[in-house]
């Protein structure tokens, strides 16, 4: 079975494309009536969906994996645990699921990339949702010890109010592009023409 497109994506670290590549290849193999399930990299396929934050496709894939394969390959269940925690919004559980398993060599890099991505996303979420938040909660959401969490927050410009153990959030200034280019004029002319006729 030729799994080279998936290997290519993994090697070039295009983790967000892994899910689509896996889907297309799986449908192609299925259409030829080949029994691909035994050698198929379900763990990577599942993690691809989780990485792209497509939890619905991850759920459907999990449901379609045969029971024997789920039982004989614990790595797949471990990836699914991450997906489950994301689905039930168990924010800290995701970190436990990532750290609680000894990942095989081919999937480790992807798991590490996902973990970094997830921490960044969590931080952005805290940024947009809170004006003040307790240190315990920051540590909880970022999956770090309280001291590390404080350092991380201070690095990003937040302030610490040590009397009540709260951190004051500083929202980053978002730079939005507002350039106007000539093609817009062309489009505006088209609209006016269309509306007049």
């Amino acid at each position, binding site marked *: 079975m030729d799994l080279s497109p998936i290997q290519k994506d993994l090697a070039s670290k295009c983790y967000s494309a892994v899910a689509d590549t896996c*889907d297309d290849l*799986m*449908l*192609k193999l*299925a*259409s*030829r*009536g080949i029994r691909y399930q035994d050698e198929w990299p379900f763990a990577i396929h599942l993690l691809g969906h989780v990485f792209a934050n*497509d939890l*619905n*496709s991850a759920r*459907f*894939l999990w*449901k*379609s994996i045969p029971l024997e394969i789920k039982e004989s390959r614990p790595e797949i269940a471990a990836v699914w645990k991450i997906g489950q925690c994301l689905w039930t*919004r168990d924010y800290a559980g995701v970190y436990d699921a990532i750290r609680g398993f000894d990942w095989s060599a081919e999937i480790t890099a992807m798991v590490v990339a996902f973990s970094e991505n997830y921490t960044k996303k969590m931080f952005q*979420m805290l940024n*947009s*949702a*809170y*004006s*003040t*938040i*307790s240190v315990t*909660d920051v540590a909880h959401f970022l999956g770090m010890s309280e001291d590390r969490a404080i350092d991380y927050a201070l690095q990003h410009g937040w302030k610490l*109010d040590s009397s*009540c153990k*709260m951190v004051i959030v500083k929202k980053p200034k978002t730079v*939005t*592009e*507002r*350039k106007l280019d000539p093609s*817009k004029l062309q*489009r505006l002319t*088209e*609209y006016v023409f*269309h509306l007049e006729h």
Partner: protein
Amino acid sequence: MESVEVLVAHIQGLFRSSDEVSQLHSLLKQSEDALRSHADRLVPFLSQIDPSIHTLGYLFLLEAYSSESISREETSGFLLSVVEFINSCSTEQIRLAPEKFISVCKIFKDQVMQLGVPMQGIAPMRMAIRKLQTSTEQLTTLHSDYLLLCLLAKCYKAGLSILDDDIFEVDHLRDHFLYCYYGGMINIGLKRFEKALECLHNAVTAPMTTLNAIAVEAYKKYILVSLILNGQVPSFPKYTSSAALRNLKSYTQPYVDLANSYARGKSSELEACVQTNQEKFQSDSNLGLVKQVLSSLYKHNIQRLTQTYLTLSLQDIANVAQLNSPKEAEMRVLQMIQDGEIFATINQKDGMVSFHEDPEQYKTCGMTEHIDFSIQRLMVLSKKLSSLDEHLSCDPTYLSKIGKERQRFDFDEFDSVPHKFMQRAYLFIRKGSPNGVVRHCPQTILSSSIMIVLEKRVTMRR
């Protein structure tokens, strides 16, 4: 058997010029009965023909072979030959005999479902649709079969490539109903509730003379998805058929009750309503959606608070939304912020939540691109409607009818004529038409053009 051998030799001797192909086509049509009588012995002949060059001949043989029931041992071989055929066939030759191609594909789909391997059929069916369609705007009979296979195999994402095409031509209304219903289900599975609502809306408001089961099931899901998305069920638009208007609600009473209970906003009452009708929801396979409706009630209760308050304590939110604790309220608000359903900031120090306005100013590059894209789409739609209008205006049936009507009106009254027809247009839509052309139109500047087109169809049909 000799006739089949002669036929095969004829097919193989063909070069690709179009006269020879049409000659072969007529010869094949005449030999259909002969082929069917030898259906079980056609397999060796199939291997002698190359499907990419002699597509038409291969198609006729394959169709004749599949018209008889296929034994279990031969099924997998049959499936593989169909897959190979679809992958390598020539598009022009298929379009000479589309009914045969559709028939082969339908039998393929039935076999794949019987064998319990719907995933095997997905990639070939997608290819078959692309080869059969004259443009991506055409709805073929195979669309709904493809979506059904995606649903059974749980490959919902695969259905999106076909679902995201805008459809402007519909050949058979039944295809449209199934396509919209399955499309709605796929979108629900992927939690694209707005798209699901569009699909189900099209299924419910399509022209129909009598109510059909697909529209009833679609309406049930329509109610549930409307509640999840908007917290209320909109009333039927004017262009709904009278069959739907009169009868839909009586067939979907438990769902209507659920909607009424939802409108009162009390989660305990809603839960009681779900309990009473649980079996009905279960037998309709809608229980999962109903549970989502339940959890959406908390969401909508919190959303309603943003319209009244600028800041509110977590304890108060918990009380109003009937949640158990301020911590739970905080988690819910956090989830809603994450999903973009609310704009707020939580202040844990004081235990307060401040609600904000939507920060979108519609000034960024990304947003202008999005607006441009939508305007382009509307312009294309508008042009299509105008060309449809012109086409109808030149139609002799329409012209003869309007000629008769004209005598009753003076030249000065010309402008009021379209209005007279407008009421009849509503009547026409409600009576439904067996081969109505279904359009998905946003309710904007285009509604007047739509009415003009519809009026003209009305005069033609009278």
